[in-house]
């Protein structure tokens, strides 16, 4: 090689190396930006949402006196239903602050504890009636405004806009006596939705999401996989199958709200399926994830080397046996990945579910596939729409739950993949 050429190469080499370095920098920058966005999201969500896992409780001494709630006969169920259970808490608070006498002040005092406390007393006493007439020291859930104030006050940034100066004074007194404290919020995981932020829980939406997803998976995975196998292995290659293929690809790109409209028009109006139930949500979400599963499954089937099929056919396996014994096991990990991607999308989907009534305010925790339910993303949507400040941290907490749900699903997918692949 001539000296001249070597010089040229050396000069161009510097340029080539520089462009390679630049490319690497850009790549690294992209990764760093991505990571930063994720970290920011997580820090923000967790910092906002972590508060929701703890709630403010006030310690009160409760006397289960039937007179206090205006009940004459504790065995008269009808009377119990209409009783003013909240009075137990009110009475205890008045005992704690005997100086409060004015009517308006009394109401403010009563507002320290959650409106839902009365329901807890009712449940408690219905379950064990022998408690009547006894005394008990209990941690009672505080009202959401108190909760918001107390948490912000603990953080040295008090938010007192919705409280009177008396209420702040009472909280101070309670705090100095050690009668007010933050405790783990078990109700958040035990309750359905509520108008009262301190009473609102995630369990209803969580169970709703679970039921909906299980049904979605049961409907879309077998159907998607069989459709993919048929199209890839058995269907003749002609313009009809081409047309089907194009349409499946188009279907994957259809906005999800269209599937909601489909559910509304066909399944509710035509077939008369009741609205708001997981079965309906699952049908709509299954239709939505089906194209994704079919496309990824076909890709997984395509990636099985043709030599394996030839080998099986060569020893005399039928087409179906070849598919069942070799193609399916080899492509299953890929199919599972596709299914999980589809499921993750379905889990995060809101729009189609709004159309079929899963946006309803549902307090009860669904007990089955046909009970009205809502799902996590819709719950988040509902909460973020609510005016009470306490719902901000509830929303973030729900997002944390949703993300954890997704992560659990992904871990299961990765685990299944590893297991299935290890067999070979």
């Amino acid at each position: 090689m001539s000296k001249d050429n070597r010089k040229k190469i050396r000069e161009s080499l510097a340029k080539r190396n520089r462009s390679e370095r630049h490319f690497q920098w850009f790549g690294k920058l992209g990764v760093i930006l991505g990571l930063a966005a994720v970290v920011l999201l997580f820090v923000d969500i967790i910092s906002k949402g972590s508060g929701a896992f703890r709630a403010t409780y006030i310690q009160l001494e409760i006397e289960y006196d039937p007179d206090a709630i205006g009940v004459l006969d504790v065995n008269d169920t009808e009377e119990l239903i209409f009783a003013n259970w909240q009075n137990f808490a009110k009475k205890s608070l008045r005992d704690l602050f005997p100086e409060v006498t004015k009517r308006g002040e009394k109401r403010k005092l009563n507002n320290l504890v959650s409106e839902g406390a009365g329901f807890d007393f009712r449940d408690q006493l219905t379950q064990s009636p022998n408690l009547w007439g006894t005394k008990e020291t209990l941690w009672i859930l505080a009202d959401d405004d108190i909760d918001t104030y107390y948490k912000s006050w603990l953080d040295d940034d008090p938010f007192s806009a919705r409280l009177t100066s008396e209420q702040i004074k009472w909280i101070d007194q309670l705090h100095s006596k050690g009668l007010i404290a933050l405790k783990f919020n078990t109700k958040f995981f035990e309750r359905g939705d509520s108008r009262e932020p301190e009473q609102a829980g995630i369990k209803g939406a969580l169970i709703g999401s679970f039921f909906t997803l299980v049904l979605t998976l049961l409907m879309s995975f077998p159907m998607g996989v069989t459709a993919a196998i048929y199209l890839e292995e058995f269907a003749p290659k002609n313009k009809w199958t081409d047309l089907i293929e194009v349409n499946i690809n188009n279907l994957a790109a259809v906005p999800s709200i269209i599937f909601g409209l489909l559910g509304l028009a066909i399944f509710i109006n035509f077939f008369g399926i009741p609205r708001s139930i997981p079965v309906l949500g699952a049908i709509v979400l299954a239709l939505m994830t089906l194209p994704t599963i079919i496309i990824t499954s076909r890709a997984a089937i395509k990636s099985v080397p043709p030599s394996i099929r030839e080998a099986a056919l060569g020893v005399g396996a039928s087409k179906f046996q070849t598919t069942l014994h070799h193609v399916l096991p080899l492509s299953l990990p890929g199919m599972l990945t596709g299914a999980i991607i589809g499921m993750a999308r379905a889990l995060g989907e809101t729009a189609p579910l709004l159309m079929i009534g899963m946006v309803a305010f549902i307090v009860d925790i669904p007990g089955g596939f046909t009970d009205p339910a809502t799902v996590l993303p819709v719950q988040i949507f509902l909460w973020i729409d609510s005016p009470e400040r306490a719902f901000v941290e509830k929303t973030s907490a729900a997002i944390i739950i949703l993300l954890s749900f997704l992560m659990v699903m992904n871990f299961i997918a990765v685990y299944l993949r590893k297991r299935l692949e290890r067999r070979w």
Partner: protein
Amino acid sequence: MSNSKLSQSISTDGADPKISEQVLDVEKDLLSMESYSTIGNNLVEDAKMSVRNVNVFYGDKQAIFDVHMDIKKNEVIAMIGPSGCGKSTFLRTLNRMNDTIDSCVVSGEVTMDGENLYDPKLDVVELRARVGMVFQKPNPFPKSIFENVAYGPRLHGLADSKVDLDELVENSLKKAGLWEEAKDRLHQPGTGLSGGQQQRLCIARAIAVEPEVILMDEPCSALDPIATARIEELIEELSQNFTIAIVTHSMQQAARVSHRTAYFHLGKLIEVNPTETVFTMPEHKLTEAYITGRFG
């Protein structure tokens, strides 16, 4: 090889244009000819398989033209020819492996022991059990060595008991010359073997269902010379019990292992002769040109 490519390869490096023109003329004749006849002894007395008037089409394109040929019992017959000459396609008509390609249409008659293989009543699964196949790339299933060999017999229910199956697997591996290397790792994945061992595993898998004919489609093209030599030795041994048709792009391999050699050119069967004849004094000009490395 397309006609233009052929003429190029011949005319560019030839100092003497006479010969290249001759070969070209022969090829042109061959292309234009509606009917042609194969030179040599393509038909034999005691045929295991007989191929008559076979044409193969891929859509509009004809890949095989009017082939007449017999395959003798317990012989090794090699099919050679330039790439794209249809030798692999022809091999695949013998166990109807072409059925898997939608656009492929086969006309004519292929018989084995007098039975028409393209009879609509014949189940292709049974045919493939009788005519085994070994492929170009070693393609063991991603399962254990044992499972690989046992797959065929299990599929067809050939073994009555576990003991039978064990014995069948052992015998097949022994016949394929893999037993000594594999007996201690029967339950390890077949894909962990070396290339040559994998190909012998594929041969063991093919012979486990005790076929009558074994088709081999360039079985050594992915192997090193030592592994190739092992397979060739194995082919020689297997020809005691099986009829073997082998497609190879290595003329030397055809010369080493086969008893008869068939030369294909542009989908036509040009010449079939005993291997020693083909490699010392081929009858057809095109065979000669291919054998001596004039094109291919």
